[in-house]
């Protein structure tokens, strides 16, 4: 059946900010969906609050709304755009929940825009655990025995019935939030109590434990003619008990016979039919008892998921793209398989390789958090690798993590005692357990022992043992022969591992290997195990015989991606890589993408001319470059766009004679090396906060005394402020240095004077050697000292004057010249006592590039790629890619305000005692994602950003205020305003006294230490927060000691999922936001209209824009919304 003719426009709901459990895989799926729908001539309306996504680029939809994904806002968009249908199955749980609200509120019916893809009944059948159990039963399969509970009493009774341990699963939360194992009643009270809170329906499922069973997933697709295919099977190496997002997973399933696999397939198909997913993809998870094969259906997601993104990359079958086609009426047999072109999509991919996905965690950012892996997802990213066998794929995946200690090693002698200790440790699943397993096996523990301890299938353990055996052969060999090197390489060993085992430099290993002619070949992911010819060059390396890299004639540009998502390096960098690829393809280059992150758009085989799914280590990148150099001319390699990962390779690549385009490695060094950068600053007449470098604690103390406390300390060469803290005294400094030096002995500690009360300014600029294009100047809401990635910021700057902006512009230009930037540069300034300090300059694409591009309507990343390949800013202006005159640093007076807000993952992390980790912001970045709010003024835009980030500002109720002494004066005006706006203020003694003296009424509440035993008025502030009495918490900490006091308050606020404000500057912003949202109606505006009204390109659209903005209150909101 062909395309439905009744759908002319579709509203696609995105997934919002990147959070743990919902990352950029939904950007990948959403981008695919938008492309497909537009190719089909359908008007696409998109809503997604996340500016860092590629899907929210204006070119992917007809109307792109970077607005909060809340039912109210989406209703306003529907009212304005009147779409024929709503597609919510590609935007994760966020989109699905929003769609269900819109259905329940009657909005979809009111505007006649039904859901396509899954319908509401199917979504509820899939998500409601009790109903789903019925589905499974009707399909003749089994669920784990379970009991639905709505209260603590029911939980306790249920556990008594099922017997401990029990699994606790809150309903309708994403990424398994709030779920976990309860081994006893205390566990149950804690986890179950939280679960009831997290569930929007106060519903928790208690389940029999199937801990240690084998875990599998199937990705299933169905069309409306009831054709069903299983796209991919995925096997979890970590058995049941670890969230699949936190497990090492393997595709295809490797330890099932056909009978068992077909049984899973039969059940999967029966379930998708019974649930009634009319079209699209869904994911079904199974547990299989390793002792007897009993199968339990765990859950099913009636939507595209993280696993489906992984399955798409693992098989070459683009699930989201096909799902979008199914949603508008096509059947599977009508859609061609992109890769073979000749065969239809109604087949099941077959793999002649093994795919391994490994999670990347960020526990180092949350030292207080319990690192035990449970059914609540905690990883922040993942790397995938492809090999011709499991050992090769596993070792490639581990090195793709770019994390010290993540790869297998054979350092030192290992006694049986050590091995047994490693085995004991490996019983508890944690980040890095796989290495403990490898060490245990290496030290003499048997596969049986390790299996008993970890539940990992013996086949996988045997393969890890095989890796150890190969390492032993390598260690014992007299010399490196071609056969030996080939054997070692076939099992995935890196040159670095070989070097370490053979005790020789990595470069020598590589030299020997090349001299012996041992190089990888590149195979193709083709969906069909070579049964049909593939047209899509989606490659992976292997030490096999025959390469499939085709010769080419056009010059190639190789773009190095950013690897697995981590805090500090996320989708923003993928955005820049993808844009570079698009821009350069348009200009006649063949673009070659190298990346290993399965969640991204960059690893979609459609994005670049060629895709290499490879780790981003020097070795792997050099081999790709070699293969491409053999295939045809290479114009250059781009290292500037993928963040610190490729930038870190620049010097070594250049040393190997690789042509780096854009800013040269020498110039990069000028920016990154403290001494060299100091000279750049001196020549430019710019100043940095006083600073010094130290290699020991004595040196550090000396430096600190010279420049004065407080100081900001950090290891050199870091991204995302890793290991960065503000230190106030000698003792803390010594402690820090000792810890940090241990972590990275090669790199010194950098010590900077910390500027109190400074305004932080972020700049993205493009420089061609002569001309600069200033992308945008952002003013941070939080004062300097909070990592820029965790700060909210505004563009245009909310409070800076023309004179200050001019100083920033001049300084940026001097830096670009001094460093020798060709392409993008990001500079962070601090303005304190009217002095402009340069904090740092990074000659690469920054986290803020997509935000700037959207706020100003200028494709900054595309322009950057062109500049790197030799175009001048003037040429790009003439071409119309950049505005003919002016730039993002001088926006017109009528420009609306764009606010970027960070989204933080504190609710995900608990201490071993089960308390939320501290939510205090600092110089170390901890946010996972960001949202953007655009509106006429700062308050409204800030309010939108807060809504989008999931912690909407309150409209009424009680606000608890507890501020540091130095903030007491500054708090008065905003707190007074809150009272005027009708809020009740709660405060503890000190703050309450100050408020009272200034005529602001505050209700006195007890500190936690003042909690009484009586039954009247005895409850502490923590109790009030936990029971939901408090709608917002303001808690600014002072010095190191008060931080501990405030922790209980902040942890309670995190648990209660209420907004928390930890700086006085944010309080002021929040008050503006609260006021704006109380007095104004919802205004929505598409990015396309935004850019048109802004009219940086001088196309004459701004006259209407000025008028429109003047009357926006009445005009921008359709009558229906107000009504």
């Amino acid at each position, binding site marked *: 059946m062909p395309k439905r003719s009744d759908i002319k426009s579709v509203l696609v709901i995105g997934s919002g900010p990147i959070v743990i459990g919902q990352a950029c895989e939904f950007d990948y799926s959403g981008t695919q969906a938008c492309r497909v729908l537009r190719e089909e001539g359908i008007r696409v309306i998109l809503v997604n609050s996340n500016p860092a996504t590629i899907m929210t680029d204006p070119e992917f939809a007809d109307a792109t709304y970077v607005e909060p994904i809340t039912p109210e806002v989406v209703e306003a968009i529907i009212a304005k755009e009147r779409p024929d249908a709503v597609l919510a199955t590609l935007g994760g749980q966020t989109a699905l929940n929003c769609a269900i609200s819109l259905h329940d509120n009657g909005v979809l019916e009111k505007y006649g825009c039904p859901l396509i893809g899954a319908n509401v009944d199917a979504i509820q059948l899939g998500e409601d655990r009790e109903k789903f159990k019925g589905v499974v039963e009707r399909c003749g399969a089994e669920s784990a025995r379970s009991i639905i509970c709505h209260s603590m009493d029911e939980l306790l009774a249920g556990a008594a019935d099922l017997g401990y341990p029990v699994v606790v699963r809150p309903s309708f939360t994403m990424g398994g939030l709030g779920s976990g194992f309860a081994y006893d009643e205390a566990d149950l009270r804690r986890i179950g109590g939280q679960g009831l809170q997290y569930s929007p329906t106060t519903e928790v499922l208690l389940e029999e434990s199937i801990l240690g069973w084998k875990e599998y997933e199937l990705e299933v697709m169905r069309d409306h003619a009831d054709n069903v*295919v299983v796209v991919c099977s995925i096997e979890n190496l970590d058995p049941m008990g670890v969230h699949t997002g936190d497990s090492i997973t393997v595709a295809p399933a490797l330890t099932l016979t056909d009978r068992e696999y*077909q049984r899973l397939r039969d059940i999967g198909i029966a379930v998708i039919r019974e649930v009634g997913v009319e079209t699209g993809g869904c994911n079904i998870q199974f547990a299989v008892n390793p002792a007897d094969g009993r199968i339990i259906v765990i859950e099913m997601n009636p939507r595209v998921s993280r696993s489906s993104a992984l399955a798409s990359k693992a098989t070459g079958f683009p699930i989201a793209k096909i799902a979008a086609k199914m949603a508008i009426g096509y059947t599977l047999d009508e859609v061609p398989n992109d890769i073979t072109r000749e*065969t*239809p999509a*109604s087949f099941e991919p077959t793999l*002649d390789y093994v795919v391994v996905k490994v999670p990347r965690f960020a526990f180092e950012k949350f030292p207080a958090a319990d690192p035990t892996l449970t059914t609540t997802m905690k990883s922040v990213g993942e790397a995938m690798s492809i090999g011709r066998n499991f050992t090769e794929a596993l070792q490639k995946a581990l090195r793709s993590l770019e994390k010290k200690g993540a790869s297998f090693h054979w350092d030192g002698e290992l006694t049986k005692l050590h091995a047994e200790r490693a085995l004991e440790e490996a019983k508890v699943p944690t980040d890095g357990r796989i290495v403990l397993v490898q060490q245990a096996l290496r030290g003499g523990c048997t596969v049986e022992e390790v299996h008993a301890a970890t539940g990992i299938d*013996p*086949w996988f353990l045997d393969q890890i043992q095989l890796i150890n055996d190969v390492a032993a052969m390598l260690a014992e060999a007299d010399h490196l022969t071609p056969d030996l090197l080939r054997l070692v390489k076939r099992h995935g060993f890196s040159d670095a591992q070989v070097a370490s085992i053979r005790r020789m430099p990595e470069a020598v290993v590589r030299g020997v290997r090349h001299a012996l002619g041992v190089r990888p070949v590149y195979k193709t992911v083709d969906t*069909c195990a070579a*049964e049909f010819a593939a047209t899509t060059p989606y490659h992976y390396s292997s030490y096999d015989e025959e390469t499939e890299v085709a010769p080419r004639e056009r010059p190639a540009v190789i773009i190095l991606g950013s690897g697995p998502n981590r805090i500090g390096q996320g989708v923003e960098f993928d955005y820049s890589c993808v844009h570079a690829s698009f821009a350069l393809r348009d200009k006649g280059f063949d673009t070659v993408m190298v990346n290993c992150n399965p969640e991204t758009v960059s690893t979609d085989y459609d994005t670049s001319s060629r895709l290499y799914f490879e780790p981003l280590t020097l070795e792997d990148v050099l081999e790709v470059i070699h293969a491409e150099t053999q295939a045809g001319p290479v114009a250059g390699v781009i290292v500037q766009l993928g963040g610190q990962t490729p930038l870190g390779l620049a010097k070594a690549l250049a040393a190997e004679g690789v042509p780096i385009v854009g800013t040269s490695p020498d110039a990069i060094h000028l920016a990154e090396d403290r001494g060299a950068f100091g000279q750049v600053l001196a020549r430019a007449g710019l100043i940095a906060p006083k600073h010094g470098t130290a290699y020991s604690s004595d040196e550090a103390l000396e430096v600190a005394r010279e420049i004065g406390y407080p100081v900001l300390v950090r290891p050199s060469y870091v991204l995302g402020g890793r290991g960065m803290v503000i230190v106030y005294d000698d003792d803390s400094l010594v402690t820090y240095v000792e810890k940090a030096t241990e972590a990275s002995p090669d790199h010194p500690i950098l010590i900077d004077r910390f500027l109190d009360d400074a305004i932080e300014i972020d700049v993205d600029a493009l420089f061609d050697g002569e001309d600069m294009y200033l992308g945008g100047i952002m003013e941070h809401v939080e004062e300097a000292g909070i990592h820029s990635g965790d700060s909210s910021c505004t563009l245009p700057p909310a409070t800076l004057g023309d004179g200050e902006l001019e100083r920033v512009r001049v300084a940026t230009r001097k830096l670009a010249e001094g460093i020798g930037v060709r392409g993008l540069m990001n500079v962070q300034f601090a303005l304190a006592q009217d002095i402009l300090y340069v904090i740092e300059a990074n000659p690469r694409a920054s986290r803020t590039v997509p935000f700037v591009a959207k706020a100003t309507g200028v494709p900054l990343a595309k322009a950057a790629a062109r500049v790197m390949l030799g175009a001048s800013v003037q040429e790009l202006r003439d071409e119309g890619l950049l505005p003919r005159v002016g730039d993002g640093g001088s926006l017109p007076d009528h420009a609306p305000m764009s606010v970027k807000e960070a989204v933080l993952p504190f609710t995900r992390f608990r201490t071993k005692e089960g308390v939320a980790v501290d939510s205090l912001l600092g110089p170390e970045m901890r946010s996972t994602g960001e949202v953007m709010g655009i509106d006429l003024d700062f308050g409204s835009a800030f309010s939108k950003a807060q809504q989008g980030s999931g912690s909407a500002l309150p409209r009424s109720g009680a606000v608890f205020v507890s501020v540091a002494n130095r903030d007491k004066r500054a708090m008065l005006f905003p707190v007074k305003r809150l009272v005027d706006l009708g809020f009740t203020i709660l405060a503890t003694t000190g703050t309450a006294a100050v408020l009272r003296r200034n005529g602001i009424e505050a209700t006195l509440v007890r500190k936690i230490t003042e909690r009484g035993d009586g039954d009247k008025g005895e409850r502490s502030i923590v109790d009030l927060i936990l029971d939901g009495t408090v709608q917002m918490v303001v808690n600014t900490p002072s010095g190191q000691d008060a931080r501990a006091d405030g922790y209980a308050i902040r942890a309670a606020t995190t648990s209660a999922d209420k907004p928390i404000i930890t700086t006085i500057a944010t309080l002021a912003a929040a008050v503006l936001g609260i006021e704006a949202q109380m007095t104004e109606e919802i205004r929505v505006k598409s990015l396309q209209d935004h850019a048109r009204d802004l009219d940086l390109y001088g196309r004459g659209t701004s006259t209407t824009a000025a008028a429109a903005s003047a009357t926006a209150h009445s005009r921008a909101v359709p009558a229906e919304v107000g009504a």
Partner: protein
Amino acid sequence: MTTQTPLTVPARDGRPGRRREPAVLVLEDGRTFRGSSYGAVGQTVGEAVFSTGMTGYQETLTDPSYHRQVIVMTAPHVGNTGVNTEDDESTRIWAAGYVVRDPAIRSSSWRATRDLEDELADQGIVGVCEVDTRALTRHLRERGAMRVGLFSGDAAAHPVDELLDTVRTSPQMTGAALAAEVTTSEAYAVPAVGSARFTVAAIDLGIKAMTPQLMAQRGIEVHVLPATATIDDVLAVGEHGPDGVFFSNGPGDPATAEREVALLREVLDRRIPFFGICFGNQLLGRALGFGTYKLKYGHRGINQPVMDRTTGKVEVTAHNHGFAVDAPLDRESETAYGRVRVSHVCLNDDVVEGLECLDLPAYSVQYHPEAAAGPHDAAYLFDRFVELMTTRQTAHQTTEANA
């Protein structure tokens, strides 16, 4: 030529390491691949075919249709779940040789009774491992199925020219009549599960164990007859002759099966409900007057999309065929047995995957509804057989009642 002993992974956990000898794979067009021995050491020749299934190696190896074929597995890891006592499709391994990339060192499955490699060695199946199976598959895809020799141990030490001669002088698949080599020597019966509603004569041209099992589950008592069965043998099945006749899958060139085709015509003449699978489909095609031809490299895998043209639905199916029926897709054909249509077609390449007689109770499919290995999407075809026989029974009863 080097005959250096391959690097072998040492023994561990008290188990001996696998003995690996140098091995060479020689294709009839002269391309060679070097690897290591797997299973039995020695030499074997056969037709090189590749199979793309990721599961079900035990079923595949014991499928008689692979007689005289050397199977190249595109899935890199083979042997992970060992072998068990339940999944054999016949009493022995039929494949002439086995080519894999990464054989399992250790089996892991609660049903496994032993390692695949031991089974291969004990049954004398010569295999080669550690070769670039993808390169080999691509070669076969581009050049077509061809003869291949696997040589390991001492056999691998001979000059390639000699080995190539051995390959080139081995028999071709085209023109090969192999049913007699794989069929049962004695007739046997598979009792129905529950009460027997029908009796079927199944001609064993290389039948897989799952086929009579699936029939038995539907209340059919299956009498499996040797390929040499005559029409009298067939008619002797059941009290009043069989309710239906089935022709199984099997190896070889259908063009050589004149005797079997003649038998099938006798069945059609008597309007006995007929169902054929794979080779059985090719024989129905020939009995109806269509030609058969050899595909360039065949269909072997468990992921093939077939459209059931009756319902318009797509099923994912198990395939194992090197030959196909040449019948028009776009129209019904007039044959000696009335109108015939192509009922099923492979969506990958439009190859005929099923035939249906419109004026006779006879149909067949080229692929494997019995799966084993493979998806169960096409199991409904066994229900159709039951329906055909039910219709005939009802018609008989009606006739008898009227008489």
